[in-house]
C-alpha cells in the first residue's frame, strides 16, 4: 500500500477530522501514533482502531505544553527511531451555545488558548518532529488550516481566523527550509465540514449557507482525510508550501 512502512503522528486524533485523518492514513498502510488532550477519547479511539486490526500507538498530549511535546517526540525517537509524517490537526474554535464571540467580547484567556493550541502547538510539534524526519531523509508536515484563515469567517471568531492564517504563513516558510531534506510542508484549508466545530444553531441559517456552496452540500471529514493522505504520498512530492482548499468551491483563491 501507498503508505506501508510510514510512521505518522496525528494531533487531536481522537475525534472529528483528526480521527478521520488517522483512519485514512491507517487504510493506506501507515502506522499511526494518535495523540489527544482527552484521555478517555484517546483510549477509546485507539482501541477502536486496534480492534479493526490497524497498527496504532497513542500518547496523551497537550500540544501547548513544551515539556510534554519534547517528551512525546523523545519517546517516539526511542521507540521507533524516526517519524515520517506529522499532521498538525489539533485545533480549537470556541463557541458559546454554537455561536462565536464577537471580538469585543473575547476574553484574553480565550484568545491565548486558541493561539496556544492552534499556533504554538503546531510550532512545538513541528520543531520536535523535524529532527526525526531528517533521520529518515523524508518527511511530510501537514497542518490543518481553515477557510477562515484564507478569507474571513461568519461562524468562527477572530482568534480562530488569526491562528489559521498564521498556520498558512508558518507552513510556507517551513517549506523553504527543509526541501533539500526531502521534507515537504503543506496546509489543508477545509471549508464547511460536518463536524462538531461547525455547529450552527439554526436550520434556516444552515440552508442559506449551503445554497452558497457550489457543490450544494457540506463536506465530510473523510474528504479532508483523503487530501491529507494524498499529500503524504510519494506522488505529491513536488507539492510544497501549498494550501489545498477543501471547501466545495465556497471560497476560491
Amino acid at each position, binding site marked *: 500500500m501507498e503508505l506501508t512502512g510510514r510512521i505518522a503522528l496525528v494531533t487531536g486524533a481522537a475525534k472529528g477530522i483528526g480521527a478521520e485523518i488517522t483512519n485514512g492514513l491507517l487504510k493506506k498502510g501507515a502506522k499511526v501514533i494518535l495523540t489527544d488532550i482527552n484521555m478517555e477519547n484517546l483510549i477509546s479511539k485507539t482501541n477502536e482502531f486496534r480492534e479493526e486490526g490497524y497498527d496504532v500507538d497513542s500518547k496523551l498530549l497537550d500540544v501547548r505544553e513544551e515539556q510534554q511535546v519534547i517528551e512525546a517526540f523523545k519517546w517516539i525517537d526511542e521507540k521507533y527511531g524516526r517519524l515520517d509524517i506529522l499532521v498538525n490537526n489539533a485545533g480549537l474554535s470556541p463557541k458559546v451555545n454554537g455561536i462565536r464571540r464577537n471580538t469585543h467580547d473575547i476574553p484574553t484567556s480565550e484568545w491565548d488558548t486558541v493561539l496556544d493550541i492552534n499556533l504554538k502547538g503546531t510550532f512545538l510539534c513541528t520543531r520536535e518532529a523535524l529532527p526525526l524526519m531528517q533521520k529518515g531523509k523524508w518527511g511530510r508536515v501537514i497542518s490543518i488550516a481553515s477557510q477562515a484563515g484564507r478569507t474571513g469567517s461568519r461562524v468562527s471568531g477572530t482568534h480562530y481566523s488569526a491562528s489559521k492564517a498564521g498556520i498558512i504563513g508558518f507552513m510556507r516558510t517551513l517549506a523553504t527550509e527543509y526541501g533539500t531534506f526531502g521534507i515537504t510542508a503543506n496546509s489543508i484549508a477545509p471549508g464547511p465540514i460536518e463536524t462538531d466545530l461547525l455547529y450552527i444553531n439554526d436550520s434556516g441559517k444552515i440552508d442559506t449557507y449551503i445554497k452558497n456552496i457550489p457543490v450544494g452540500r457540506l463536506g465530510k471529514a473523510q474528504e479532508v482525510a483523503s487530501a491529507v493522505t494524498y499529500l503524504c504520498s510519494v506522488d505529491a512530492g513536488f507539492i510544497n*508550501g501549498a494550501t*489545498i482548499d477543501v471547501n466545495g468551491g465556497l471560497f476560491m483563491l
Partner: protein
Amino acid sequence: MGILDGKQVLVTGGARGIGFEIAKKMAGEGAKVFVNDVKDEILDIAVTELLKAGFNAEGYKADITDEEAVAKMFHIIEKKGGLDVLVNNAGLSIRGVHALRTGTVEHDVKKVTEIGLMDWNGVLNINLTGTFLCTRAAVPLLKKSNNGRIINMSSRAGRAGGSVSDIAYVTTKAGIIGFTKQCAIELGAYGITANAIAPGVIMSEWLKDHWENLSNERQETLLNSIPLKRTGEPQEIANICVFLASDSSSYITGTTLDANGGSYLS
C-alpha cells in the same frame, strides 16, 4: 485495480510531454483514455505506446480551436460510453505557436513588443478558446457521470509571471484560473468539480530543449529559487491529475493546485 477503474477520460494535447504523461498515468490507474492531439504522427506513436503497455486508449485527431471538430469529437466520445473526466491540457506558448505555424524553432522568449498579432491570437485560441470549446461540449456528458471532473492546466506563470514565459502564455494561464472558478460555481449543482493545476518548472520535452540553452549560472539561479532545489517531472503533474480525477478529491472544487516545489506560495 486502479483508482480510476471504470472512468472515461479525455486528455487534450495528450500525445506528448505532460499531456502524454497524464494519459499514461490515468490509463495505468484503470481509466479508458481518449487521447486528443492535433498532429497525426505523434498521436499514433502515443496511442501505440499506451496500447502496447496494455492500457485502454484511443486516439482522436482534432484541432480544439475548431468548433465543429470539437463537436464531432465529443459526439464520438458520447457514442463510446460518455465521459467522466475532461483534462484540458492542450496549450502552447508564443514559441510553440510560432513553431507550429512556421516550422522554425526560436529559443528566445519574446517580450510584449516583439509579439505579432497572429502568434498572440494563436496562443489565446488554443489555451483559452480551446479550453472553452472542449468544456462546453463536455458538460452534457459530464452531467451524466456520477463524478464529473474538469481539470484545467494553468501554470505557475499564470500566478506570478516568470522569466521563461511569454506574456500571451501568462495571460491565458491566469485566464484559466478564472475560467475554472466560474465552472466550479456553475457546474457544482450537477456534481461536477472543476480545478486547475499550476505547475512550476517542469522538465518536459519543451523545457529540456530550452533548458540546454540557458547558461549554467541561469540554471543555478532558477534551481535556487525552488525550495526543493530541483525541477519537477511531468509524472508529478500527472500524479496530481489522478488525484483530482479520483473520488478522493470530491469536495475540492474551484481550486488551483500549485505543483512548483515551493517556488511560488499562494
